[in-house]
């Protein structure tokens, strides 16, 4: 009799408990699925940020390299009276271009990693590549041009020279550098 009562009541209790466990399991599965989706979404956002970060760091490196090249003694504006940050001596650049065409030492001045270097005057507006005939009324001075494939990175610089009256004249310009690692 006792056994009978047990068998009568236990299936109902067992199924209710089972239902509870099932309910719990569903909720847990739902939470896990939600967490996985949220995690994937988060990782995707982080990866996108990482890509941007890498591009931005590469750009920063390239700008730093361009500025480093601009501050080489061969280019740097140096004067006791007229100190100038970020200034490039345009006369030096033009002379270096002329020297590189004739002098063997300067023709091998740049490492093989750097494929092109170019200076460009942005303000005031000028046109054409600089030659002995049109300097300083010209726009660009191409110092190096050793490859057909370019990936130019640029940085703003001041392009300065001594004018006919003997005082410093600076123009707004850019240095473009192309290197294999860009």
């Amino acid at each position, binding site marked *: 009799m006792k056994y009978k009562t047990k068998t009568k009541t236990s299936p109902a209790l067992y199924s209710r408990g089972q239902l509870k466990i099932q309910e719990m399991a569903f909720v847990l599965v739902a*939470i896990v699925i939600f967490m996985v989706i949220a995690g994937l979404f*988060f990782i995707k956002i982080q990866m996108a940020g990482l890509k941007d970060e890498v591009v931005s760091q590469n*750009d920063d490196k390239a700008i730093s390299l361009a500025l480093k090249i601009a501050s080489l003694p061969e280019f740097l504006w140096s004067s006791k009276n007229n100190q100038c*940050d*970020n200034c490039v001596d345009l006369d030096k650049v033009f002379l270096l271009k002329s020297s590189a065409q004739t002098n063997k030492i300067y023709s091998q001045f740049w490492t093989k990693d750097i494929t092109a270097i170019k200076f460009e005057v*942005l303000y005031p507006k000028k046109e054409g590549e600089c030659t002995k005939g049109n300097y300083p009324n010209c726009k660009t001075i191409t110092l190096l041009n050793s490859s057909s494939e370019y990936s130019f990175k640029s940085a703003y610089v001041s392009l300065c020279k001594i004018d006919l009256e003997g005082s*410093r004249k600076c123009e*707004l310009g850019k240095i473009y550098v192309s290197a294999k690692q860009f």
Partner: protein
Amino acid sequence: MFQQNNFKMKLNKKAQEEMVGFVVIMVLVSIILLIFLSFSIKTTPKDKNNEELANYLKSLKSVTTECVVFNPAKASVSELINYCQKKYKCNSGEDTCVYLNQTISNILNLTLNYGQNFKRKGFVFRSIYNNSAEISNLVYIKKGNCSSNYALAEDFDVLISGGSISTSIRDCY
């Protein structure tokens, strides 16, 4: 009667437990969402071209203008900003502030592309003189739309006569 009441109470208790469980899950989910949101907000605002902009500002300030205040040297933009604050005039008779605004406007127009088709939507160039007694705008040039994200480059000049001049450029993208 007693049995019926007991059954009702048990049902209520169970419903309450379910509610508490639901609330706990909702709170957990909202906390997780908040954490994700705070991470994503933290990573978005970045000034990518600050260094480039700082170089631009530095180079712009070095540009030599055609205005001569003290013979024989032509003044640079940086010197003109100082002369404008002192209300000097160019030897040609032109007001240094007017000349400065025109020159900077020309430089910006020629060197910075902006608009709907460009990454840069607009820009603001500003030069402010600041001392304990007054704050005055020496140059204020605003072009395009500047209500969205921006990068800022700023440069300070401390004057011997007192006060300082802050020159900034805001690149809006």
